[in-house]
């Protein structure tokens, strides 16, 4: 078995690009309620690569009647290449949900679909839907601008704006036309406290945000994201450009933000996923392979492939 998994490692995983080998159309699948029969498939990755039918394994622990975000049979194409195949999952209210999987498996693409950042790319087509608090994200009548205000996002590389720390944090209020200095100051302090940055920068709110260190910049981006009090916070590998200490700091922060915000995080770091998240989804080549509580995924995965991946034997 182990030899086989090693052989299987697809050539595209090293790059962030969408692997060429993906072909469009995949058989429609029932997303939920699939028993352990998958385990008997024998070579799930092979099945995926050959575009054969397979069924996502969802643990009972990952069912919630009132999720903040629900993804329903979501598919996405970049031009002709299909990057997401029938992804269905949920993000429970006030919890941290982690997306793991090898590079190029569509984690970031999925994340960017939640606040419709992929609209910015001309060649993208989608089908399926996502529901934010029961409302469709992809409905024709949805105002993308309003939607994005309800969903905060933090990127892989810290991207503070070329302005002062203060202006960075209150950016989302500024673009809404808020001018009341007191409101802005209050939001700024709350958000910076929320992001654990207040003590470090309270004396230099007017200095350039670009002068902060990488870790501080990333926490500033988190402060900026939570200033708008979003329903969901999307974190796209927020620690990949940071050193271990800054990473630890961000993880603590995620722990603190949990409960107040529902968080969807993409990570390459298994330890981070196991430490920081409540639920974990394992993706491979645009498919959601297994989804359950973090405990289940890491300790009692139902699929051999998942176990191999989370224990580091693969990927």
């Amino acid at each position, binding site marked *: 078995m182990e030899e086989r998994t090693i052989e299987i490692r697809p050539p595209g995983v090293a790059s962030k690009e969408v692997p060429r080998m993906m072909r469009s159309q995949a058989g429609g699948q029932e997303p939920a309620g699939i028993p352990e029969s998958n385990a008997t498939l024998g070579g799930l990755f092979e099945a995926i690569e050959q575009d054969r039918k397979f069924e996502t394994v969802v643990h009972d622990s990952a069912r919630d009647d009132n999720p903040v975000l629900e993804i329903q049979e979501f598919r996405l194409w970049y031009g002709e290449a299909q990057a997401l195949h029938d992804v269905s999952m949920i993000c429970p209210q006030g919890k941290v949900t982690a997306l793991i999987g090898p590079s190029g498996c569509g984690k970031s693409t999925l994340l960017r679909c939640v606040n419709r950042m992929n609209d*910015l790319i001309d060649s993208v087509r989608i089908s399926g839907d996502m529901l934010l608090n029961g409302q469709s994200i992809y409905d024709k009548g949805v105002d993308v601008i309003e939607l994005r*205000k309800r969903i905060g996002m933090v990127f892989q590389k810290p991207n503070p704006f070329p302005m002062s720390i203060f202006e960075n944090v209150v950016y*989302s209020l500024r*673009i809404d036309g808020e001018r009341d200095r007191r409101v802005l100051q209050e939001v700024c302090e709350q958000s910076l406290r929320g992001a654990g940055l207040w003590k470090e920068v309270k004396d230099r709110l007017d200095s350039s945000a670009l002068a902060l260190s990488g870790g501080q910049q990333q926490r500033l981006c988190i402060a900026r994201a939570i200033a708008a009090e979003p329903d969901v916070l999307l974190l796209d590998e927020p620690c990949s450009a940071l050193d271990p200490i800054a990473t630890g700091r961000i993880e603590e922060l995620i722990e603190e933000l949990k409960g107040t915000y529902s968080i969807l995080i993409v990570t390459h770091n298994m330890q981070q996923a196991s430490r920081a998240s409540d639920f974990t989804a394992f993706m491979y080549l645009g498919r959601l392979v297994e989804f359950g509580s973090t405990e289940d995924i890491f300790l009692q995965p139902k699929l051999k492939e998942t176990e191999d991946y989370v224990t580091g034997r693969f990927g």
Partner: protein
Amino acid sequence: MSPVVETRSAPSAPAPRQRSRRRLTRRRTSLFAHGEPMVWLTGGALVIALAMIAGLLLLVLGQGGLTFWPKPLDRFVLEGGVALMGEVTSSEVLEDGGSRQLVRTGNYDLTQVHFTWVEDSNVLERSRPEWGLVLERQSWGRFYGEPRAFLIDGETVAEDPAQVWTRFEQFHPGTRERYEQRKALETHEIGRLNARIESARLAEKSAELDSGADSPQWQRAHERFVRVQEQNESEFDAIREEITQLNAENERYGLVLETADGTRTTLSLADVVRAYPANQLGFADKLGVYLSRWWEFLSDDPREANSEGGVFPAIFGTVVMTLLMSIVVVPFGVLAALYLREYAKQGTIVSMVRIAVNNLAGVPSIAFGVFGLGFFCYIIGASMDELLFEARLPNPTYGKGGLLWAALTLALLTLPVVIVATEEALSAVPNSMREGSYACGATKWQTIRRIVLPRAAPGIMTGMILAIARGAGEVAPLMLVGAVKLAPELPLDGNAPFLHPERSFMHLGFHIFDLGFQSQNSEAAKPMVYTTTLLLIGIVVSLNVLAVLVRGRLRRRFMTAHI
């Protein structure tokens, strides 16, 4: 163990030594592949470029910087008894081994020449008269002579040169002040009256055009015109009276001078701009004359067909036109670049537009001048005249070259520079910043205004600097669309609406051309060419330095740290 090691290393050791010796002795790479000549070639190219720039600057700086330094006054007595006095401006060696000197002898009103060649073999006597005076006059250029008498009301009050000089220094400032007063009256006061009567006349003419002659409207306008005319008449008289008084007071003083050949002539004090005994000056006095000439050069109007006096109108015209051009070209260029880079769908058409814009930068500037004249002056300007300034026809208001059309023509000329620089600056803004802004719920325009533009501002400033440098130095198109040899009025004055963009103007670049190639007294104008060039370079450099400082500030604000 050790013998084993030795036996192992012993046979293998000579082998690499041999190989390395071969590498050292045989050159395996060709000379060109090695690249050594390229270092010299590239370095040499840089050195030649630098040497040319340095040579240009040194020439301009040396010639232009020394123009105003007072020279001593020499008196020559030539064979045949001819006597000359003047400043030696240059000397050259003749083919037969002799030498000759070019002497600026001035006194054009008496001798009809400005300069005289003096062959050294011809000179019987050469001296530096103690009381040789250099007088710069309002008209007729310089006068060289020795003081003989000072007249007040026709009476001689002093005859000794030293006393005459003392009297001169005593009364000269007063007469100059009255002269300036008179000039101010003539230009400002009479200009104001003229503007008033002109507007009344235009009102009458418009009434005639709108409602026909003898209509009630015309009657009213006509009455008003007559009233203004009468009122002006009395004010004119008062001003004329004042001017006559000032003139009469100035006429009282006269300076009698004797030229080298013994002619005596009387100069009015008011006509003398500056005078100094050239051979008595110490370093401080020379410096004083030097600085005073520079000040006059920078702040005064030109005299003597531009070959003397100042270039203030030209400085003013250059700066105002360049600023006007920047005000027009920067917003337009930035907007165009924003559309090309941020909104337009990148494809064949956009690429073609981009190529066209780049090629526009290569169009000869005179072509822009022709376009400016044909389109701005003769089409837009003429239409504006017909619609708005009908009363002034057939005299064109906007239908001729002017400050506005020159600025617009140069704006067109520099537009590609701004567009290209702005596009580069925009594409250098990291996409992660745009995404961050979109993710915060910003619209495209909010993202552009709050994130992209500030971040691109230093690059846009670079484009503006390049545009200014190009625009301020351009002459050819200006000759067609408004730059003139001598503008009667500045484009900015005290009469409403204060800025007159339709007026023609003077420009330093055109001034240089005019001095160097159109001047009758080219020998006297030559040093002024260098001085004006120095000034033009100075202005362009200082405009650039200003823009660079602003850019530096922006850069510190928006682009610190590692992003």
